[in-house]
């Protein structure tokens, strides 16, 4: 690791001297790196040789009479070692090109400029594309369903981002609020016949209430301890749902949850349905498209509120809390209410998403709210870059979309997934978008490097 830093510094010093030189000159100044890359690749290949010589090079089996028979597979071993050698060179080159902030960049400035333009354009392009998804993929139910799923996780990610990314409170039990929201809607709708649009805010409020209830006991906890208690809280909610059979139906879940209506107009084939009122032919896709735009609106609401909150004193206090809790106290900021509002706000969005989940599925059971969901949402936030809205959206797209993409690979899916995570953490240890945008500026807004931004410790 230190070796990498030292060698990275050498070409940096030379390239600064020739900063306005042609790409050819930068290539020459980059020359000392070649020996390093080869050395590193050689070491990787050696490690691979030692590791795989017995695992792949020699194959053993029990013979018919119980004796050991073995045969060698040196050609396979050679291929693997060569792949590691070549792969190591490629990875090292990529690292130096798009490496973390501060390392030398051999990419010409024109390419860098166009990349910067592309980076600015990502968010609007992505948004426009999302709006057009139901139009483009109208006939492809699978894509629409996947889109709804991705957007649900984008919303969950944005909600958790308030707690983890802004306030720096590690919450491993976020799924609890998702469950509270889902069950709030399911039970209110099936028992009292309340409509989705009345239940949606109620679900949010109830989840926020539970957020505060979780917040109180964990106020004094930090870091690992906070993570453990929130984890336990998530499990408690799930266990209560499983065991409180008379209310929640236990493991059987709640079924027959009403579908959402367009302000009272159901999306059904009947005479009072939307299709009949508009005079168009009924199609089940209408409901899917409606759900798509519903979750898109909810997610964008989450995003808008979060962006607004960041520029308000409460949002700044959250970020200050992440940076330095002691300094916050010295400035007269009430740590208790600040933490509780962070928990409540995050939980509220989780509750909204839960209510949406219930109405989309029509059936919910405790199985949907396991720890794995919490871990997935947290992974999205961490991968996206804590505190970055765009990063979280991209991470949700990659995680959920990527998961579906590799569905064909069967058991290799998790392998590819793990590999991608490892690569990402090498490249972008602070997530896809690691830098922080200031909330207020005098002359010009400049992004703050992730090295300075704290991750929070509870």
């Amino acid at each position: 690791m230190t070796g990498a830093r030292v060698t990275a510094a050498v070409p940096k010093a030379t390239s600064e001297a020739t900063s306005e030189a042609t790409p050819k000159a930068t290539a020459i100044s980059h020359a000392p790196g070649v020996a390093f890359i080869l050395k590193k690749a050689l070491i990787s290949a050696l490690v691979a040789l030692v590791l795989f010589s017995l695992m792949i090079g020699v194959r053993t089996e029990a013979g018919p009479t119980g004796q050991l028979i073995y045969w060698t597979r040196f050609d396979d071993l050679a291929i693997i070692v060569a792949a590691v050698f070549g792969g190591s060179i490629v990875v090292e080159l990529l690292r130096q090109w798009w490496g973390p902030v501060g390392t030398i960049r051999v990419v010409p400035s024109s390419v860098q400029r166009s990349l910067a333009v592309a980076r600015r354009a990502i968010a609007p392009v992505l948004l426009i594309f999302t709006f057009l998804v139901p139009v483009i993929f109208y006939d492809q139910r699978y894509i629409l369903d996947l889109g709804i799923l991705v957007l649900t996780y984008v919303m969950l990610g944005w909600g958790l981002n308030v707690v983890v990314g802004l306030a720096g409170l590690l919450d491993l039990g976020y799924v609890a609020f998702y469950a509270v929201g889902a069950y709030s809607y399911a039970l209110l709708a099936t028992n009292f016949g309340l409509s989705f649009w009345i239940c949606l805010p109620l679900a949010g409020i109830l989840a926020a209430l539970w957020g505060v209830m979780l917040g109180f006991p964990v106020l004094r906890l930090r870091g690992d301890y906070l993570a453990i208690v929130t984890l336990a809280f998530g499990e408690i909610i799930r266990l209560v749902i499983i065991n409180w059979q008379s209310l929640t139906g236990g493991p059987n879940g709640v079924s027959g949850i009403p579908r959402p209506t367009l302000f009272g107009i159901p999306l059904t084939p009947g005479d009072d349905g939307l299709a009949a009122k508009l005079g168009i032919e009924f199609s089940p896709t209408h409901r899917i498209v409606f759900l798509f735009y519903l979750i898109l609106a909810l997610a964008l609401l989450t995003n808008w509120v979060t962006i607004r909150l960041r520029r308000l004193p409460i949002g700044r206090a959250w970020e200050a809390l992440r940076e330095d809790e002691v300094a916050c106290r010295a400035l007269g900021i009430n740590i208790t209410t600040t933490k509780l509002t962070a928990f409540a706000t995050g939980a509220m969005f989780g509750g909204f998403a839960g209510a949406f989940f219930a109405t989309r599925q029509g059936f919910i059971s405790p199985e949907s709210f396991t720890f794995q969901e919490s871990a997935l949402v947290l992974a999205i936030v961490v991968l996206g870059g804590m505190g970055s809205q765009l990063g979280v959206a991209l991470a949700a797209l990659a995680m959920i979309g990527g998961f579906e993409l590799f569905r064909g690979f069967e058991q290799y899916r998790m392998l590819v997934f793990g590999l991608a995570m490892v690569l990402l953490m090498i490249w972008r240890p602070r997530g896809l978008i690691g830098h922080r945008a200031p909330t207020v500026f005098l002359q010009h807004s400049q992004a703050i490097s992730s090295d300075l931004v704290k991750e929070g410790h509870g």
Partner: protein
Amino acid sequence: MSGETILTVDCLAMRFGGIVAVNDLSFDARRRKITALIGPNGAGKTTVFNCITGFYKPSGGSMRLTHDDGRNIQLERLNDFRISKQAKVARTFQNIRLFPGMTALENLMVAQHNALMLASGLTFLGLIGAPSWRTAEKRAIDLATFWLDRVGLLDRADDAAGNLPYGDQRRLEIARAMCTEPALLCLDEPAAGLNARESAALSELLLSIRDGQGVSILLIEHDMSVVMEISDHVVVMDYGVKIAEGTPHEVRDNPKVIAAYLGADEEEAIAVMESGT
């Protein structure tokens, strides 16, 4: 009647288990004056600070803060953030505690949290972008700009606080404390790690805060040139008790103080002084 004294510390004691960090300490800090708290390392100065600013709950004694309007506040009854919010006591830290990932301007905006929180209608008015909130925010930015200008960091307003040089960070921390609009400003070794030129600038800044804003200052400092130059009153501590107090000149010539700093007996110190003069 506002009175001459802003802070009265009376028989303050702080014990950590069996260790007595501060014992029976009494002193006054006068209004619109700079009071320095000095003493050798481990004398208990920072402990006193932590008691005054609510980070520790004292084991005994009382601390009374008298505001301009004659309002008395017993600091030992307030805790934590209320010291800053209600008693208007601001502090800085020995090891700088800025928000490194936020810009200098943002640091000063966070300091105005309580005022802005009210102006934003506990967030709800701010969320809908009410005009009253916008003007309040603009005023807050103006105040922050004023203090950035005062500490000479206006051109670095949009830089991350963690990126500023050490001396600038020290001054930014003072500016941040001033943005809470305090009545009493407590500075824990503000000149630590500064070079001679920066120390001189700091002295000037503190004097201008005292005279310009009418803020009383209580400071811990090891840099004697700063203490002697700007202090109106000096309190000397050693082993948790007060050993001397007075004007800088009185304190400088006090044998007990010299003995404490040299780590020698009082008689020896007197002997050294007499042989010197």
